[in-house]
């Protein structure tokens, strides 16, 4: 997503999918499958399983496009959330799916644009986003990765890393605050500083 024209284009694709246009879903797949597969592969660490998850997520998108609400986030965010939640479910079969819950969370919290994150996603490339994550202190980055890609709760993270619960929650909280600040500064950087965009 780079500009409003692209967002309008995405809205059109969503409308086309809702009208039963399978080619529109193919276009969405072409755009977002590589990120979705990256997330799935990072979580389950198995190429075959990861591709199955991506396949199933796009089938779900086809079947449940009426549940997609652009006010809650982009189409890519929605698809990635489906992939991520299913991958976590597969990783930890005894953990209930959070697909619906996350959507509800967003509806509770969404009160308007979130400039820092939205701008970062719109303007920065994957290399810059990786660099911003890499700038986090090791213990904060580890906590975030255990949570988002490992599907661990903060209680589990506390146990795994040998710290009190309060420390685990603080690391997650501080990591996101710091990441947000990193991205804010990146947003302010000139375009010439955003070399190596690989998205």
């Amino acid at each position, binding site marked *: 997503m780079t500009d409003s024209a692209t967002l309008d284009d995405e809205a059109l694709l969503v*409308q086309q999918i*809702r*009208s*039963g246009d*399978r080619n529109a*879903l*193919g276009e969405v*797949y*072409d755009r977002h*499958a590589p*990120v979705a*597969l*990256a*997330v799935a592969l*990072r979580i389950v660490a198995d190429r075959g399983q*990861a591709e199955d998850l*991506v*396949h199933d997520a*796009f*089938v779900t998108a*086809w079947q449940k*496009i009426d549940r997609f609400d652009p006010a809650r986030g982009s189409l*890519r*965010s929605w698809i*990635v959330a489906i992939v991520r*939640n299913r991958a976590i479910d597969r990783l930890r079969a005894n953990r209930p799916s*959070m697909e619906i*819950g996350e959507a*509800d*969370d*967003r509806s*509770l*919290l969404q*009160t308007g644009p*979130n400039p*820092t*994150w939205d701008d*970062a*996603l719109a303007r920065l490339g*994957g290399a810059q*986003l*990786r660099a*911003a*994550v890499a700038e986090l202190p090791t213990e904060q980055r580890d906590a*975030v990765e*255990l*949570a*988002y*890609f490992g599907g661990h*709760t*903060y*209680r589990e993270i506390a146990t795994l890393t040998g710290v009190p619960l309060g420390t685990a*929650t*603080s690391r*997650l*909280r501080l990591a*996101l*605050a710091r990441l*947000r600040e990193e991205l804010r500064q990146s947003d302010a950087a000139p375009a010439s500083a955003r070399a190596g965009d690989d*998205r």
Partner: protein
Amino acid sequence: MSDEMTHESIDELAGAFALGAMSADEAAAVRAHLATCDQPHAELREAFPAGDVLAASLEPVTPSPDLRDRLMGSIERIPPVAHPSAEPVKPPWPRPGWFDWISPRVARPLAVAAVVAAIAVGAWNVSLRSDLDHRDAALRAVAAAIGNGQTAFRVDGTAGRGYVVDTPGVGAALVVADLKALPADKLYELWLLDAAGTPVAVGTFTDTSGAVAVLPVEKDLSGYATFAVTVEAKRVDAPTTTPVMVGDLTGKSS
């Protein structure tokens, strides 16, 4: 973590909540707090999209060439979802406007009972009124079956009202109350229609002696847009009369 969360504890958990790093119970407690709280909880709100950034920070991975073909082949077999903004799908006859939904608290136990009874009895044309033991047994079985996730859709019309309940992999069941009796030379025939309106016959029945009837449907509801019941002289491959009951399978389930 207590279910009673304070503003401070909510904020402390902002990162964990945003990244889905909480137990289901704890996340539910946070949602319950947010649903009634008049505080802005700005940190939580600002933290929430972080997952999108983490996903986008990964090096994209090109899928195998055949994955796209597999996906397109899969969705080729799945009708699109009807949506209010999409071109409406027209059934081969006018649809009555009865598709309101009663309380899921009532609908789901009734629907699940229907499935349980239909499977347990394993026969057509079961009258539950004539055998209250069967009905009671079905209702008792509901206690164990509720939560299995079956999907129920309202069915309504001039002949009666009830629910059609999906049990993927097994079939489905129609549970209908106060069904009108038919002349001896007529039968009820059940239909599933896809989004294009193409009907598939999925069963017949004649016994309407009970206040509540449970009727197995020969196919599960996946991929179909409409359920209908017509009155026919014999089992036929396409309906010859206007439906006496219709259910919209594309709307929300009970």
